[in-house]
């Protein structure tokens, strides 16, 4: 069965690459352009995993994390934070709010693809 990956990022320039990459990896891709849209799409599409940018308009990645983890239906859905924030404190905050893992920009797409595979396997 095809897994669905939701990508939430407000930067079109990274969305192009990420969308292409995830499709190439064989996933169905849903794209959100801000935190608010991400929450709505998660509710509607029930993706198998979420790639979440931290700095987004309307709702930050932290807010989204917090909100979807509060919903029992999404307790185990893997969340991978993609962040331009390099500080330890930001990483700790993301993990504390329910993200499973994080990658700091810039990152290698190969590593990203590997992380997504690992997280989906672990969740299954």
């Amino acid at each position, binding site marked *: 069965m095809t897994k669905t990956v939701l990508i939430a990022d407000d*930067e079109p*320039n*990274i969305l*192009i*690459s*990420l969308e*292409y*990459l995830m499709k*190439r990896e064989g996933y169905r891709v849903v794209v959100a352009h801000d935190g608010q849209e991400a929450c709505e799409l998660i509710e509607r599409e029930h993706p198998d995993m979420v790639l979440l940018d931290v*700095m987004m308009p309307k709702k930050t990645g932290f807010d989204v994390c917090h909100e979807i983890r509060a919903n029992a239906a999404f307790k185990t859905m893997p969340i991978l934070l*993609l962040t*331009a*924030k*390099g500080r330890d404190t930001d990483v700790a905050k993301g993990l504390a709010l329910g993200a499973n893992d994080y990658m*700091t*920009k*810039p*990152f*290698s*797409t*190969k590593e990203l693809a590997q992380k997504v595979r690992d997280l989906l396997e672990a969740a299954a």
Partner: protein
Amino acid sequence: MRRFDKRVALGVALIGLICLVWLGATGGLIWSTLDETGRTIVKDTLGERMIVLLAMWAISLIAVGSALRFLVSYFMTAPARLAEEAQVLLGTDVKRQLIPSGSIENRRLTDLFNQLVQQREALREEMDVRVEEAARNTEQEKNRLAALMSELTKSVVVCNLDGRILLYNNRARMQFRALSQAPGVTGGGELIGLGRSVYGVFDRKLVMHALENIQHRLQRGASAPSAQFITTTPSGQLLRAQMAPVRSVQSADETAKMTGFVLMLDNITREFEAQARQDHILHTLTERSRAALGNMQAALDILEYPDVEPDMRERLLTVLREETAGLGNRLRELKSSALDSTVLRWPLEDMLGSDLVAAAIRRIEALGGLSVVATEVDDSLWLKVESFSLLQALSYLAERLRQECVINTVQLRLSMGTGRAQLDLCWTPSAAKLTDKVVPGWENDPMRSGGEDTSLTIQDVVERHGGAFWFEREAETGTVFFRFLLPLAAPQEQLETSSVVRNESRPEYYDFDLFQASAQSRSLEDSKLSELSFTVFDTETTGLDPANGDEIIQIAAVRIVNGKLLRNENFDQLVDPKRNIPPITIPIHGITPEMVRGQPTIDTVLPAFHLFAQETVLVAHNAAFDMRCLQVKEKVTGVVFDHPVMDTLLLSAVVHPNQESHRLEAITERFNINILGRHTALGDAMATAEVFMRLIPLLAEMGIHTLGQAREAAQKTYYARLKY
């Protein structure tokens, strides 16, 4: 007339009686041995001459009397007089020599007394001299301290444990002015002043916390504990305060008690804002660069796949182009943004430009072989510089010019450029070509001059000033020069510094007697007049009927704290009455409609005045009128003046009930008070204050010491029946 002495009379009577008895007894004895014939002969002989016998008896009694009289005065009266005079000397301070009289012993005694009196005088004079000297020393030390304080560039405020201000310096006053919520009206006068509470600016809990901190450390034996805190003030400024304890003089066996504290204040609002802005820029720069790099990396990764469709390839390349351009732009923006100023700066200080030029001349001429002339120096310019390194740079350049370009005269110029000051070191080249060949690049060589070596270059010095440096040739004159672009002191700081310089008479910014002042242990009514704080004020109005539309157009006040008139802590404000000023009143107060135009209105001025007068007793001449003016505004302004009030008119009537006039003019004349600027609100307030200060001791002579007593006495006077 000599006084009748009972003792002499008694003595004379006694001796007379003894003589009579002796005569009688002897006569009787002889009589009994005689026969009849002998008795007849004696009777015949004596009988006729009895008168002579009695006369002789009386005459000898007179002689005895005067002898007695002399003896008594010689041996008894003289010592008695001496005793009386000694008593006087003992009881009073009179300096006088006693005149010796009476017996030799008495005379010697008198001499001894005189010597003792002299000795006492000598001792007393010596003591007076010492006391005076000690007082002079104390006064001198106080003055020294005050001088030191007023020159300090740091704000210093000293408070007692109740938070009352005992001392502050000029810098602190200016800082508090910046903190005032109504700076235009009171100039911060409501916040800083002797005897005022520092809690008007700082949260009491914060100060208490810092105090406790210090006290704990003192108890643990710390020798010089201090505490730091950063706080925001009601006007939104950020202050950094360092607190150190003031301790009582320590005797050998006890630990010093804390009697107050010193606060050293820095307004770090501006620094903090600059820092925050820089942090923010740095932070967003990192994040945005990371994001951009992330986008590029992802795009590159995808491009590496061999099977990417041409369409996708083109999109990814566009991403790469966009992000590269974006990064470039960001770096360019950064260059012109505030981050540019994050270069570590030396502590720069304000310096009058002409002072810097004068110092440079001295320094260059001291090197020898060069004469320096200052031409076109704009002496209104205040620079923000690190003068030591700048002087080093100038003398390095001058010396190198002398050595390599054979120059023996240089000129210094200082002028205003766009946003910066231009400091030029000019000279007339001996050979133009030589100069052009030699001079460029000097700014990058380590500076050497007068045998001093440093690894710094001119470029370093200029960068640390956030300035610039270049070599230029003036086409018309042929003059060549090195130009330094240097930062100017911020306008506010210029003002501050110049007002410090201008202030020649040293104002009273300290009152250590307040150290002894305890917290309000007695109620106000029982407080002594000599110990209370007063706000003496006067208002000018458009007319005499405040209840029916007459308005305040000026309020002025001065403070009396601890029996001292604080002329510098005054309040003087024109008020826009928002109505016309009757022309007929203008000669009285001298305030024209033009003067009040644009001035604050009563609803800003009264709250500020209320703050200024907080925790004091209000004093005015004919206070009923002034109070009425304040009271009719209570509804509009929301401030209620419920201070205790003293009226100098009534108090004057208490002190001089027989005088006809108690007008302010009459009283000042009576007390011989001369006030400049009478008939302005501030002049009148000042005059009223002087009058009030003179009334306090006169009231005390009448047994009126406390506020309560003074009010009672004032109410009883005839004038008290007059009510507005």
